[in-house]
């Protein structure tokens, strides 16, 4: 009974809007799970295994995120350190590398603790420059110091791309948790993360669903042959509407700031998806790994987030948050 009391007290201490938000996500997922259970009965003969895998993986991902968000900023930072690490490992493993690059690869992983340390210390001005300026400079120097000049620029760029997307940009998600409670946050700092993640993932799913049902005209045929104008526009409108509706409940955004987030975030999500697709096409792979059943690799799941996270953070900092 003590445990139940403790859980009740813990939940009572959380902002109600955050709990409603998480509850809403679970409700949506439950609906999807019910549909995936009914579909084979209504329309038999098709293979629904991937859909089932996808939804099963969503349960796991949402459980991890919800647990981290409820546990606080430390747990959320730890989770995103792991996410950055796995994403960078997937990226550097797909990119062309050489045996001589092994120490540079090892050094690239050190950018993760270096960057996240300034999230832990809540030192935003240093976080802003540690990867984009100093890791940017150190990487080519290290390669030069190891005496490597063959294919130099292309190899340096590989590391830069991995560090910026997987470490720096993803770090913004965790940094949202450091907005202090002195700010007018309707659902706590965790509400900001929840809004960003729900909007980004909803955009992915909405584009997919609109594209599947109405898609006719290909939008970037040479990069992603399955993406259509109908999917992009439908996803854009649906996600903008979603952000306009739930944004004020989970964040201090309102008015023009909220409108700009609602309009731009779905475009950034689409851009992230297409950009990572171009990279995967260049490397000749469809998925970055098989880590998440039904989804592919971690990098496949967070490709849109690498674009939406910094945009959301900067707009939030400009329009609604004093701390940054």
């Amino acid at each position, binding site marked *: 009974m003590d445990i139940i009391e403790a859980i009740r007290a813990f939940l009572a201490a959380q902002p109600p809007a955050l709990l409603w938000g998480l509850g809403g996500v679970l409700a949506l997922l439950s609906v999807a799970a019910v549909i995936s259970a009914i579909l084979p009965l209504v329309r038999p003969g098709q293979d629904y295994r991937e859909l089932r895998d996808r939804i099963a993986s969503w349960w796991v991902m949402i459980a991890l995120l919800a647990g981290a968000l409820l546990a606080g900023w430390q747990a959320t930072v730890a989770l995103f350190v792991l996410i950055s690490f796995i994403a960078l*490992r997937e990226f550097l493993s*797909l990119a062309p590398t050489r*045996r001589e690059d*092994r120490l540079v*690869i090892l050094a690239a992983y050190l950018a993760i603790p270096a960057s996240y340390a300034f999230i832990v210390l809540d030192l935003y001005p240093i976080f802003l420059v540690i990867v984009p300026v100093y890791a940017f400079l150190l990487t080519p120097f290290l390669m030069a110091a190891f005496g490597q000049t063959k294919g130099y620029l292309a190899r340096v760029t590989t590391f830069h791309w991995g560090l910026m997307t997987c470490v720096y940009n993803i770090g913004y998600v965790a940094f949202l948790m450091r907005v202090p409670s002195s700010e007018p946050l309707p659902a706590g700092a965790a509400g900001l993360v929840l809004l960003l993640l729900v909007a980004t993932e909803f955009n992915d799913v909405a584009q997919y669903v609109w594209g599947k049902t109405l898609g006719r005209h290909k939008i970037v045929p040479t990069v992603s042959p399955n993406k259509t104008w109908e999917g992009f526009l439908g996803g854009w409108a649906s996600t903008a509407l979603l952000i306009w509706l739930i944004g004020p409940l989970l964040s201090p955004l309102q008015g023009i700031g909220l409108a700009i987030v609602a309009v731009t975030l779905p475009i950034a999500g689409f851009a992230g998806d297409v950009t990572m697709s171009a990279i995967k096409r260049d490397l000749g792979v469809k998925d970055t*790994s098989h880590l998440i059943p039904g989804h592919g690799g971690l990098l496949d799941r967070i490709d849109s987030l690498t674009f939406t996270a910094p945009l959301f953070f900067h707009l939030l900092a400009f329009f609604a948050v004093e701390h940054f």
Partner: protein
Amino acid sequence: MTWLRTLLIMAIARPLAKLMTGADVTGREHLPVTGPAIVAANHNSHVDTLLLLSIFPARTVSKVRPAAAADYFLKDPVIGWFSRNIIGIVPVARRAAGTGEDVLAPAREALARGEIVVVFPEGTRGDASDEMARLKNGVARLAEAFPQAPVIPVWIQGAGRVLPKGEVVPVPMTCAVLVGTPIHWGGGRTAFMEGLRTAMLALKAEAPPLRWS
């Protein structure tokens, strides 16, 4: 000692392999659940053994015995103890090959006990250049002695990047482990070895591209 080995594999080797390499397994359903069975994989790194130990479920892993070179793993008493009791190797006396001594006797005994023997038919670690070396036919002799034992071909992609031969610092890189459908002894070493080679190369063809030079 078995419980200690299982505990260490489950609590240390498996999370370590997952973190360092992703241990990206496809075809897990082809892994044997009981012995006698033979798992034949390509070999580029000590990480291969770590990966193969960590992809089996807890109830099976106590039966999994990697065949390993006695001249390399048993020369030092501490490493020897660790290799025998924790890694659980069955020693292969490579140096004694051709002298008339039965170098595969420990592997045969393990199969007779109903264990799952992991062999690297290339005989030694390659240079991660993605090429498969000529396969030695010891695996065919084991399959001949235990015709009821399935031989499961495995292709491990990328382990040579994590820890190549001659390096001591491991670097995290994603590894793919592709497990193929079991093949069986059909009588005839040459035909068996050709079948195994074809199966391993087919798995290699399915692996993600390895851009490593």
